């Protein structure tokens, strides 16, 4: 018996064909100066114009039906596209979250009208979503959300505040976890619901939060008597907790959990060809072995999800290992670069390495902190 379920899934030649067109596009865009590669590009490099180009070429909306503007492909094709864009450090943050989790959510819970209205715009790279989970008093302890949605005659009235909402300043919608009825004694998981909020509605205020690198890609979002129609309740009233934890499990094992700094390594490899000493060879070999192993685990989960299995514990475990790896990668590259005098580093190398360092703290926080993830693994082991 093996404790964790990670079947080996060999590459599929049909899926591999997708890569070449995308690689050529990314190379062309980069060489034309249309983007400068960055680590953590899926969270912090948003460029609506670039997203529209990707939409036009059919690289967003792969997972849903053409009836709603999608491409009639699967999450496995999307996996290939996401890993190639991460490798390139391309500015994909604007559309990433909507494409990854909100489109599937609307497919499950949205009305026909919402699907026809919103999904084609997501696929076109024109419509963006923010995640509405964290609040000032609800971080790791997500069940502590206080923002309320009250039933009113023609819908729901929302009051409260969300925080750390990445990209909310350019997003069109947020899906928020809100309290729609009181907790049942100590059981705080009841009475929570997911609600779709149009961020252009009156009563919504978005204030930027500047991070330590000077970027302002996350926000505080305030709701003051914001009224949304009835059909904005997604899924079951009171079923929000279950929906959210399922969603988190889906998003924890993707390539963005271990490849978001790969651009740093690749940039260094171009500069270090033929210049590495034996200590660097050993560091590189170890790093590549870890990357290959994590890719195997992450791809394994992608295939399980594709088959309708939801491996929550495995996903948490991959995120923990992957977040450690992507931060280690940046540190290992610093060590590798000792083989090259700093005045021979390219301008890109300096820039990418610095961005990677400045953007490293959130890796082990967002989408479930290391401590929370290890708690999930410990539960799977039967320790709690």
């Amino acid at each position, binding site marked *: 018996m093996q404790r964790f379920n990670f*079947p080996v899934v060999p590459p599929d030649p049909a899926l591999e064909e997708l890569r070449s067109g995308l690689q050529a596009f990314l190379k062309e865009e980069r060489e034309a100066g249309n983007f400068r590669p960055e680590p953590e590009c899926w969270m912090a490099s948003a460029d609506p114009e670039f997203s529209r180009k990707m939409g036009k070429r059919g690289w967003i909306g792969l997972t849903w039906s053409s009836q709603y503007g999608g491409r009639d492909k699967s999450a496995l094709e999307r996996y290939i596209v996401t890993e190639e864009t991460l*490798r390139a450090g391309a500015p994909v943050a604007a559309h990433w979250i909507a494409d990854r989790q909100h489109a599937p959510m609307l497919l499950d819970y949205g009305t026909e009208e919402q699907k026809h209205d919103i999904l084609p715009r997501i696929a076109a790279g024109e419509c963006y979503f923010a995640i509405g989970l964290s609040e000032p008093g609800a971080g790791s302890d997500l069940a502590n959300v206080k923002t309320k949605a009250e039933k009113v005659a023609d819908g729901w009235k929302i009051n409260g505040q969300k925080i750390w909402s990445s990209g909310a300043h350019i997003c069109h919608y947020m899906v928020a976890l809100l309290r729609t009825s009181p907790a049942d004694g100590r059981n705080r998981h009841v009475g929570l619901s997911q609600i779709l909020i149009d961020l252009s509605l009156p009563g919504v205020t978005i204030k930027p939060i500047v991070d330590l690198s000077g970027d302002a890609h996350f926000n505080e979002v305030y709701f003051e008597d914001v009224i949304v129609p009835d059909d904005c309740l997604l899924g079951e009233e009171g079923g929000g907790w279950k929906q959210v934890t399922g969603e988190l499990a889906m998003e924890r094992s993707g390539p963005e959990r271990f490849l978001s700094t790969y651009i740093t390594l690749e940039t260094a490899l171009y500069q270090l060809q033929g210049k590495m000493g034996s200590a660097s060879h050993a560091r*590189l070999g170890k790093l590549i072995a*870890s990357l*290959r192993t994590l890719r*195997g685990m992450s791809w394994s989960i992608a295939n399980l999800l594709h088959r309708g299995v939801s491996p929550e514990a495995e996903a948490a475990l991959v995120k923990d290992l992957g977040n450690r790896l992507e931060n280690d990668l940046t540190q290992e590259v610093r060590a590798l670069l000792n083989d090259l005098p700093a005045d021979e580093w390219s301008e890109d190398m300096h820039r990418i390495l610095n961005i990677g360092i400045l953007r490293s703290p959130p890796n082990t926080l967002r989408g479930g902190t290391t*401590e929370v993830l290890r708690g999930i*693994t410990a539960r*799977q082991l039967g320790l*709690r």
Partner: protein
Amino acid sequence: MINTEGMIAQTAAKIYGDLCGREVPHEAEAGKYPQDLWDALSENGLPLAWVSENNGGFGADYDEVFGAIWASAQAASPVPFAETLIANWLLDQADLSPAEGSASFAILGGPNGGLPTADIPFGAHVDQIVMFDEALGEIALFDNLEAARIDMDALSPDGATRFVFSGHRAVSSAKTGLSQRGVEALILTVRAVQMAAAMEAALNLSIAYVSEREQFGRPLSKFQAIQQQLAVAASECAAATMAAAQAASSIAQHRDDPEKAWHEAVVAKVQIGHSVEAVTVPFHQVHGAMGYTQEYDLHHYTRRLWAWRDALGNEHRWSALLGEELSKGSPDHVWKGVTTGNWVDS
């Protein structure tokens, strides 16, 4: 995951379950060799699983046999089952008949000044020894001669014996098209599967121990510090199993050209070798003093892990070999390997 559902894997698991209970590895170390266990494996033909039908084996799927190796390592096998499988695989690659009885293997780099020597796992216990000599492109089978042996200090109960080949006559020998990398691919993959299995067995012992042992009025498992340590160790175990399974899948896919499985085998060697400390340290830590007594079972796994990570050289050596090769190729090639496991074709 390693596939443990196949018939061969199930047969091996049953034999180990019946004849290799927790006392057996202890008794073996005290000098009571479990001959009945070896006999049962032999009678069922398991050491011949990889031998082709022409040479008297059953040419089994690689997958099935890795499942049997998994079972043997989870039982802390005190008999040279994996070693005999490797030895017979080598003989079959030169179209030679399988060994008589148990066997182990050696890779010889060719005479290096003095007499050729090789370090051989289970060297004191096996009936025969298969030697791969890359310089000659030859595989040869020798009887295990006491006079040729020097016992070495060993970390593991498998023992380590240095052989000095000094004009010994081979029982049989033949040319082979097999490369050094092909041989390394198989040996490293077998060790990777054993190590992943031993790690998981030691994890299971640790979970059981912390769930029973009470301090400060409650089981150790209820302390968050213990939970988080074992969660980290468990993720390393899961990664080790994935690395081993990828290597196993690669050599199964390239059974006619095992050299093509070399990179995935080296990835497993490096990944798992580097994670040995990350698991053995917390496993011993949560066991307290009990974990390092001879009486308790944990050392059957941890000592084997400490020994197996040195097979064909330690993880640092192999990291450098892999890194050196990849540093010479293009970054595109590295990316292709990481994402598809295809490190060979351009």
